[in-house]
């Protein structure tokens, strides 16, 4: 069965969605990602959806849910690389993903995560 790879890099988990998302795949990703966060104790998750050019309400909710679940597991999550068409569709569907942090591309997303990890360390340490 096809899966979306989850790559671990230091304290980060990287998810890059390169294939057409269908509902089963999204559910699988949700399971895999939560498991991996718990297993590795990752502090930050970056989800790249730059290759995703169509989205429906289910997919929008899944993205929101995955981000929310990661946050519950104490991993900062950022959604990067959303296409303009996808952003407009989500907004028209009324899904503004209020709790999810976003960035334009992977580079900016990593900067954002690095900054929030540093901030987290300085407050806790």
């Amino acid at each position, binding site marked *: 069965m096809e899966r979306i790879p989850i790559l671990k890099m230091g304290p980060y988990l990287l998810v890059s969605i390169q294939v057409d998302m269908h509902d089963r795949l999204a559910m699988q990703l949700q399971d895999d990602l939560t498991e991996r966060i718990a297993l590795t104790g990752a502090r930050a998750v970056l989800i790249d959806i730059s290759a995703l050019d169509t989205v429906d309400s289910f997919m929008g909710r899944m993205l929101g849910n995955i981000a929310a679940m990661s946050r519950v597991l104490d991993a900062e999550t950022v959604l990067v690389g*959303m296409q303009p068409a996808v952003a407009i569709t989500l907004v*028209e569907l009324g899904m503004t993903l209020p709790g999810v942090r976003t960035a334009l591309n992977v580079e900016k997303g990593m900067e954002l995560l690095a900054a929030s990890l540093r901030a987290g360390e300085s407050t806790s340490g």
Partner: protein
Amino acid sequence: MASSASPLPRLLREHQAEVLNDWLSRQAQSNATRRDLISEVELSRDSTQFLAAFTQALESGDPERQTGANWEHLHEMLKNLSVTRARKGFTPSETAMFVFSLKHPVFDLMRRSIKTPDDLSRESGLATSVIDRLGLATTEYHQKGREEIMLRQQQSMLELSTPVVTLWKGILALPLIGTLDSERTQVVMESLLKRIVDTGAAIAILDITGVPTVDTLVAQHLLKTVAAARLMGADCIISGIRPQIAQTIVHLGVDLSAVVTKATLADAFAVALARAGLAVCPAPGAPRTAASGVVPAAEA
């Protein structure tokens, strides 16, 4: 024999100059000619060309259905004339009156030249129906011309009114002018998101100084744009909120608490610069007039 062929084309051909002069003098007296919008030279040129084409078309026959190259030429000419006059600001009836005013000179000519009452009434009927059809066609062309103008204006307004300006590296501004309806919001949103991708901007300032009124619908459109930009990883600041608009927003119960709002574009720009870790300072060695004007106020 002449009973089958109408004598009208022949009469018009023979007395063309006479009819033209009569027509021009009648048009000069008429109110519908709108001498303020069209010059005498233009009017006489239009009239001469129209009368020539009209005679030619009548000579080719088939006045009922008006088909054939000569009639097409006449209609083409009418179309150009109507569109030109529509652009100049003629009303449809004023444009149609140009054609209808030809009736008088033509009827006068027929009264003088055709002696038998039967022939006269038959020819009058024919001439009336032909000129009426042409006049009505004018109205139609006029309307089409107006519609084209409106469509073009609407499109150019859409294009003109949604510029996305780069204020600084990574800072975009979107000066919105005019009412925000769904269609414009779509255009605004698309151009903003496209520029965010192109420039990699992290901050966008929506300036609504030029938006005359903000109701719940406009506010909703604004919030949609803000949400879409945020999904792309860019923060939005709404600026240019006038006091009346601030009052309206609060009275309507529109919740803008999720968005940073500033009174002026300058304030918003200052916030954007601060977020980008930049500051504006006076250039070294520059005359300190502007700065010295600010300092006492800041101390006071």
